[in-house]
């Protein structure tokens, strides 16, 4: 575990310094994403300006939703920047270069890239929190805690569907649509979803754990909800790692010479 944390930290520092070499590009990508998120909030600003309240949600609640989701998504893709590229790496036969190294493969693939857009999401979420009606020192600590757990749930969920490539061949469409679906559901007031959709959001598309439960914990701390979140993180990560390890046995080399820079 200690070795893994060291690897994540070293790769983070290395990736960041590599990106900082092209400073203008770094700033454009990072702050471009901050701007992008601001534009997304525009929609809610107009809507709440017109209707005032949607079920039990107001603009301040929606800002908290955006804060939690963008921080969790940011943590996930800043540290595990290759998360959404795994299908492509497997299809192209580019895994070989990871298999030859002594480091455990899955963690190595995940950490070997950084997403600058996600860095922008992270910064946006952090700043936005202080404009919500829930901003306080204690809530900030809770926000960090639940966002880390939610990021593990998002990471585990994506490892599961990216690893399907080992079993069903090219699953690019699935691997592209599913993370998007988690985000689309998560960036809405939870109370608008009812019936069977709520069951889907607890299982196949885990928006409940990624957004709705973390938000409820910040609004009103509940130990049981924290435990549910921890359990969900362990289950999603566990299934993801298991599927990847089993799938790796089916992997056939692409006989491709890859230069990783």
């Amino acid at each position, binding site marked *: 575990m200690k070795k893994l944390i060291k690897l994540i930290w070293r790769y983070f520092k290395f990736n960041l310094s590599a990106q900082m070499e092209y400073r203008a590009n770094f700033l*454009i990508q990072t702050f471009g994403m901050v701007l992008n998120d601001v534009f997304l909030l525009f929609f809610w600003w107009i809507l709440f300006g017109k209707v005032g309240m949607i079920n039990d949600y107001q603009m301040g609640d929606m800002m908290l939703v955006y804060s939690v989701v963008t921080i969790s998504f940011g943590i996930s893709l800043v540290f595990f920047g290759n998360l959404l590229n795994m299908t492509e790496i497997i299809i192209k036969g580019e895994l070989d270069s990871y298999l030859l190294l002594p480091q455990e493969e899955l963690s190595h693939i995940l950490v070997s890239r950084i997403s600058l857009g996600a860095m922008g999401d992270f910064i946006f979420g952090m700043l936005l929190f202080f404009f919500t009606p829930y901003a306080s020192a204690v809530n900030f600590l809770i926000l960090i805690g639940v966002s880390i757990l939610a990021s593990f749930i998002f990471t585990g969920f994506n490892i599961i569907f990216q690893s399907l490539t080992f079993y069903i061949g090219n699953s*690019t469409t699935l691997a592209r*649509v599913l993370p998007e679906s988690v985000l689309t*559901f998560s960036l809405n007031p939870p109370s608008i979803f009812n019936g069977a959709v709520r069951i889907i959001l607890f299982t196949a598309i885990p928006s409940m754990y990624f957004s709705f439960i973390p938000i409820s914990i910040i609004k009103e701390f509940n130990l049981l909800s924290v435990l549910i979140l921890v359990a969900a993180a362990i289950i999603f990560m566990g299934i993801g790692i298991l599927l990847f390890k089993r799938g790796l046995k089916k992997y056939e080399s692409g006989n491709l010479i890859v230069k990783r820079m």
Partner: protein
Amino acid sequence: MKRLRKYFTVFKINFVNELMYSRNFMGQILFFGLFLFVYSFLWRAVFRGGEIEGFDFVRMMWYFMFTESIMLSKFVFHSEMAQDIKTGDIAYHLNKPYSYLLFMYAKYMSSSLIRMTMNLMFGSLILFITLHQTPLTPLHLILGIISSMAGLTINFVFFFLIGLSALWFEENTAFHFIYSKFLFTIGGLFIPIEFFPDWLKNFSSRMPFMYILNAPAKVYINGSSEFARVFPMQLFHILVWGGLIVWLFNRGTRRLNINGG
């Protein structure tokens, strides 16, 4: 007319080509279905209280389907054009007996129209099945398609302008980013501009962006009265902005310097 025949041939070839690879649309259709599904929950909760600015739940769902159909159908070519300019490959187009601008327009329209048709068919089918109601009549459909084509043409003009910017600026991704955010917000993608505060509504109605998404969607819903109001404005924007790109293109190609090859 005879001089335009070659552009129609480009249109036809590209159209057949796109049809051959129609499997590529699968991901886009899935995204489209996902958005319709998620937003149906949101709009149901918003319109529980009745009508807002002439929209009820059914009209809002159709409005959203039409704007998304157009938004997702746009064939993005500005990066390809910028690449052609940077590498000098544009010379292969400029020395041929056709207008580069009309060549790109024929290519863009064939790809965009096929995508729009698929989106409209899929979206209408889903809404017919789930809502059992539609504001569409055969006349609304014909006028809506004409207005959408005008909207796509205005969009083409802006894409071409962004592509042309590569003659003066090395990197034009930021321009495309800003443009897409204008469409997203004051173009009325998710929310009709009728919902905006007065000052923003006035500003948006003076801009060309609402004539790409908002105006055609309202023609589909309201028919001839809306068409009579917005179509002349669409033509006005095509002429003004179209004139600008012709002038800039002629100026820009004089600046072009291509070395050997």
